[in-house]
């Protein structure tokens, strides 16, 4: 019981801190807008797509994936912040397990990232990108599933790092390869991409996250280009989440 309450209070803290950071919420509108409007307009003709798909439709799930990734990784900063300003000590001496501590932070941060993802989805709809609003309900749990693993990466890295500067450098080092190699900006199948690129992308968990989002938002139109059927996508993402939760708990256990 006390573990559940510990989890809840740590989760709530992440939500409150996020909610109070208004500037981040406002700026989170800008970046996806730039991608969906400017980038999409410039590159729409570069990719050969089936007639029933337009480029904006294809990159919207990709940009949602990107937002989830960047926000999730950014959340690691909170851990370093907590370490630097001492609050981590208060949590670490509490009589609750490190698994609960990790889970509370991870799910809390994932909830924050999910909110950012939802904002992008809504922007997409507002821009008139032809996506059925009902698919939103299917996309939601998938988005959450994607963030669990990604937030965990950020938390694990942060638990090893001593300062903000170092984390910033590593963050870019993780963010961009995961983003570019996930097929977020282009379909991995059906084009004439170099085989090394698709081979590397196959090892990227975000590839399957983005593919799952496209499977549910684009439906049958996406099937010819899909990497895997939806259930395999979800299976891969869930498997990755499981591994990262184990690694994260271990990383938090050795944190002092």
């Amino acid at each position, binding site marked *: *019981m*006390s573990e559940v*309450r*510990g989890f*809840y*209070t*740590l989760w*709530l*803290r992440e939500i*409150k*801190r996020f909610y*109070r*950071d208004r500037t981040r919420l406002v700026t989170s509108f800008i970046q996806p807008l730039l991608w969906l409007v400017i980038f999409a307009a410039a590159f729409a003709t570069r990719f050969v797509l089936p007639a029933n798909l337009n480029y904006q439709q294809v990159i919207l799930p990709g940009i949602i994936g990107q937002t989830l990734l960047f926000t999730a990784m950014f959340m690691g900063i909170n851990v370093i912040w907590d370490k630097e*300003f*001492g*609050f*981590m*000590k*208060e*949590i*670490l*001496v*509490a*009589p*609750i397990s490190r698994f609960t501590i990790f889970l509370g932070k991870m799910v809390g941060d994932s909830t924050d990232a999910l909110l950012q993802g939802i904002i992008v989805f809504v922007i997409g709809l507002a821009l008139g990108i032809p996506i059925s609003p009902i698919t939103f309900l299917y996309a939601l749990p998938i988005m959450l599933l994607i963030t669990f693993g990604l937030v965990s990466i950020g938390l694990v890295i942060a638990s090893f790092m001593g300062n903000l500067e170092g984390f910033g450098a590593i963050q870019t080092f993780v963010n961009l390869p995961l983003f570019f190699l996930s097929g977020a900006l282009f379909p991995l199948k059906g084009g004439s991409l170099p085989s090394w690129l698709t081979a590397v992308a196959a090892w990227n968990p975000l590839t399957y996250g983005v593919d799952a989002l496209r499977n549910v938002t684009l439906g049958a139109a996406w099937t010819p280009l899909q990497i895997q059927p939806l259930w395999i996508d979800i299976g891969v993402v869930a498997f990755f989440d499981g591994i990262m939760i184990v690694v994260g708990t271990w990383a938090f256990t050795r944190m*002092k």
Partner: protein
Amino acid sequence: MPHAIETRQLTKTYGSLKAVDSLDISVDPGEIFGLLGPNGAGKTTVVSMLCTILKPTSGSATVNGFDIVREANKVRKSIGIVFQDPSIDDRLTGRENLFMHANLFGVPASEQKERINRILKLVELEDRADDLLRTYSGGMRRRLELGRGLIHYPKVLFLDEPTVGLDPQTRDHIWKYIKELKQTHDITVVLTTHYMDEADRLSDQIAIMDHGKIVVLDTPQKLKETLEGDVITVRANNIQALSDLVNKWLGLNQTHIVDGALEITVRSGKAVMPRIMELATQNSIYVESILLREPNLEDVFLHYTGKSIREDTSKELHGASAARRRAIK
């Protein structure tokens, strides 16, 4: 009555450095136990082990009857900690910080509201409870941390350097709280400090620590009485020569040079003072001032460790941090 805290040969080593060396202490329930020593003496390491943050290299200890290694969770539930460095979330309000603590430490939900209101009253932060912590002053934050440590009704409260960096008025205030808390909550307090006056004012028992070991342990009163006598402080133009002369005359090594002044501990200061003046005049040493006073804890510390606590702290700072410290002074 069982001890609130008991350690047996408690040791923590880092490589070849013995941060805490075979510590044997026992603290009775309801007492304020002061751990006094310079920075780096091992006080925080002792507290960290007792709070189950650090695992001892060897030896064992119990807190409230629970083993600090095997029953760490039970220890954690039964203690409160106020860390040396701030450990509150400054983006939450005072009340939110307290609620979070109550949840983390398993305080029943039905009691949380009332307990938190009482704590806020105790530390006089009722009117600021719903403001973000970042708007609090240093003293207010410290008070909130003190209050926070009490929400789950701990039997032992650890205070690690509770008043470092606070102004004299706030320190006075915090001391008042600590004494009040001990009485109203019936708890045992372990206090680490490198402030003599703090240890003296608050502690029922003081353990002086140096290089990971307890040098002496007694009540503040008894510690001061062991020096049996007076302290004479002399300022003169040739301190070293005067020191040698006095030592030779007394036949004992009972002098220390502290901050450029000679300190002599003797049984009867009034009888010795004229002789010191004589010695100085005969050897044409010019005495600038001479002072007689009762011994304080600073003298006790000097007596047992052979150095001044302030002198020692400044020596440990090198390079950039030393420069910064000097700039602040």
